[in-house]
Each structure stands twice: as structure tokens, then as C-alpha cells.
């Protein structure tokens, strides 16, 4: 059972952490959520359907993120924001180093600002390439709802003024080069 648990961590860790990282600003918070999710997996190991391990993990991650954000909102947000900013400045993880590209950074920010379930669906489908079946199972929605939420999430991203500005800059610099 322990070996199977370790295999599950290896297999799904990236999916769980990616969903958490694109939902929360602080990498440390995202890692805490991921760890909490895998601890829950171990605690519920005998009870869960292991054919649906990934949807189960994604559902637990999604719920943990919602709970975390709700808890944070009930606390003093200004203090929390300051802590977040400090924590973010202190962390120079590999993931954040990959965000050096300006468009990528704006895109990551814009995704984090999306409401749920738009954000989760966009991250699951477009960033992680998960199947519609897994997303439906993990968020308890039908295929049509997932697709509509996904398309609306993409439209919301396109409506982000920062992203449009970046695109126009890239576009105009491309035209200049020609």
C-alpha cells in the first residue's frame, strides 16, 4: 500500500501542484495545499476508488483551494496581502523563474484572478491538458457545462487589458521587424 501511495505521488504530484500554483499567489501556500491533499489521499486510501484517483485528487485540491481562499478572506486581507508579497519576494523557485517572460507573467496573473470554476477548468484543460472526462468527474459537471465554462474563461482572459496590451506590443514589434 505504501509503494502504491508513493507511485500515486509520483504520478499526480505535478497535476495537483500546478492547479494549486495557478490558483494561489504564494508558492508556499500552494505547496501546503498539495501536501494536505496527498495526506488526505493517504488517510482515505482504503476508501477511494483508485480507478478515479486523479479526479478525486483534483476535486480535493479544488475544494482545499476554495476553503483556503475563503479562510483568507475572513481574515484581515491587508495583513495577509503584505505577508503574501513578502513571501513571494523571498521565494525564487524554479517555477517563478520560468515566469520571467512578461507575457507569461501577465498570463499567470490573469489566470489567478479568474473566479472559480473558470480558473480551475482553464488550468485543468489548457495548462495541464486533462481530458474532459476527468474534469467532469472532478468538478461534478457535465461535458456541456465544462466546455461553456472553458470558453467563457478564455474570453475573460482575452478581455484582460494587460494581456491585450502585451499582445499588441508583440504584434507591433513583429510588424516593425517586417
Amino acid at each position: 500500500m505504501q509503494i502504491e501511495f508513493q507511485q500515486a505521488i509520483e504520478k499526480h504530484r505535478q497535476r495537483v501542484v500546478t492547479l494549486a500554483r495557478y490558483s494561489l499567489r504564494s508558492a508556499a501556500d500552494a505547496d501546503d495545499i498539495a501536501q494536505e491533499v496527498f495526506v488526505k489521499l493517504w488517510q482515505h486510501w482504503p476508501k477511494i476508488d483508485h480507478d478515479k484517483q486523479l479526479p478525486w485528487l483534483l476535486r480535493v485540491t479544488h475544494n482545499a483551494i476554495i476553503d483556503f481562499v475563503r479562510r483568507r478572506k475572513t481574515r484581515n486581507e491587508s495583513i495577509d496581502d503584505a505577508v503574501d508579497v513578502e513571501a513571494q519576494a523571498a521565494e525564487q523557485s524554479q517555477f517563478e523563474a520560468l515566469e520571467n517572460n512578461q507575457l507569461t507573467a501577465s498570463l499567470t496573473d490573469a489566470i489567478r484572478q479568474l473566479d472559480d470554476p473558470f480558473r480551475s477548468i482553464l488550468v485543468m484543460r489548457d495548462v495541464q491538458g486533462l481530458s474532459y472526462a476527468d474534469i467532469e468527474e472532478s468538478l461534478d459537471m457535465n461535458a456541456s457545462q465544462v466546455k461553456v465554462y472553458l470558453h467563457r474563461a478564455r474570453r475573460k482572459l482575452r478581455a484582460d487589458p494587460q494581456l491585450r496590451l502585451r499582445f499588441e506590443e508583440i504584434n507591433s514589434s513583429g510588424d516593425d521587424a517586417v
Partner: protein
Amino acid sequence: MSQSSEQTQCYAMQLQIDTFLDGELEGEQQLAFVGHVAECGDCAHELRYAQHLYESVLDLPKADFSDALVDNLVAISSQKGVHQLRQPSRVGFFAQLDQFFRDRLPLTIGFAALSTLVIAVVIVMAPRVDNAPQPLVAEVTPDLSAENAAMIPAAFDAAEVRMALEELNTAIDYLNRVSRQTETMIGERFVVLPLQQSVNSSLRRASFSGNEDRQAGPI
């Protein structure tokens, strides 16, 4: 073609951009979309922007956590009885609570009666939260009858109307979800927390007024 009609057509085409990017636009719809984009500069620009953004999202880095966290998880799983390890031990607490209530029996009875009354009032006064899925007002029909189809303006075909209905259903579903979350949050904040605080402060007052050498912590 009038300006408003062109705008309507552009809006309808831009709604199909994501279906096109997913490769799910077929037949006449695909031909109409490609034909329109070839002629309309604004829609072509919007499609380029959407495609660029879509590809950028696909290329976003995947995150991973450190091996130290994995080691930590492996260590947790190797501990026997981990299910109990993470649960706080309650034996001592309940024994302490039992002793506390035994020492203050009249106060306990009064407090229990008051709490029951408060809980009963809260249950009666609280708005009913219906957990069952809310019915959607709009239903997607597989095919529109000739009579209904005739009522739809020529600018929209059956597929667009179906898409609009799906959008409407999703909007309703989203509002339902937000409403359920809000109800839960209000319930926690205005019912559970004040009750918990009231119980804790009563216990604290009782413990200070009685034997101060006893340790009777809040719940």
C-alpha cells in the same frame, strides 16, 4: 449590410473562436467562420489574438513541488497509525469536560437548556438551504421545430441559439454555485462562530468564578 447587422455577425463569429480553436467547428459553420474571418479585419485580428493567447496558455510551465515534500509525505505514510496521528487526542479533554460539568451541575443544566433554545430558534429562523441542484430554466433542445425556427431572426442559426442557451444555463449554474457558497459563508460567520464564541465565553466566565485551580479550557 447595415453596420448593426455586421456587428451582430462579428459578435456571433467571435463567440465561435474557441470552438474553432478546439477544432470542433464543422461543415457549413466552419466555412462561414473561415469565410467571415478572411473578409473581416477585426475578426481576423481577434482570432490571431485568441490563437496567440491559447498557444501561450498551452506553453505555460507546469509546477512541481520539492523532493523534500515528497520525502515528508513518504515519512507520513510509513508511520503506523497515521490516521490517528493527525487526529488530536480527545480522551483527556472529554474527561476534563465531564469533571467540569459534574462540578457545576445546576449551571450545566441551565446552560444546556439555554443552548437548546438558541439552537432551536436558529434552526427555525434560518433560511432553508436547498442542496438539491436547482432546475435550469432553459433546456437545450436537440432540434428546433419549423415553427420555432421561423420565430428566430435570420441573423442567428439553430446552432447559435443552442450555444446561447448553453451559455444561459451555465450562467444560471454559476449563480447557483455562488449563492450556495455565500449561504455557507454567512452561516459560518453569523451563526456558528457567534454560538461558538458564546459557549467559550460562558465556560471561561464559569471557570473564573468557580475553582480557579481547575483547568477547564474552552471547547
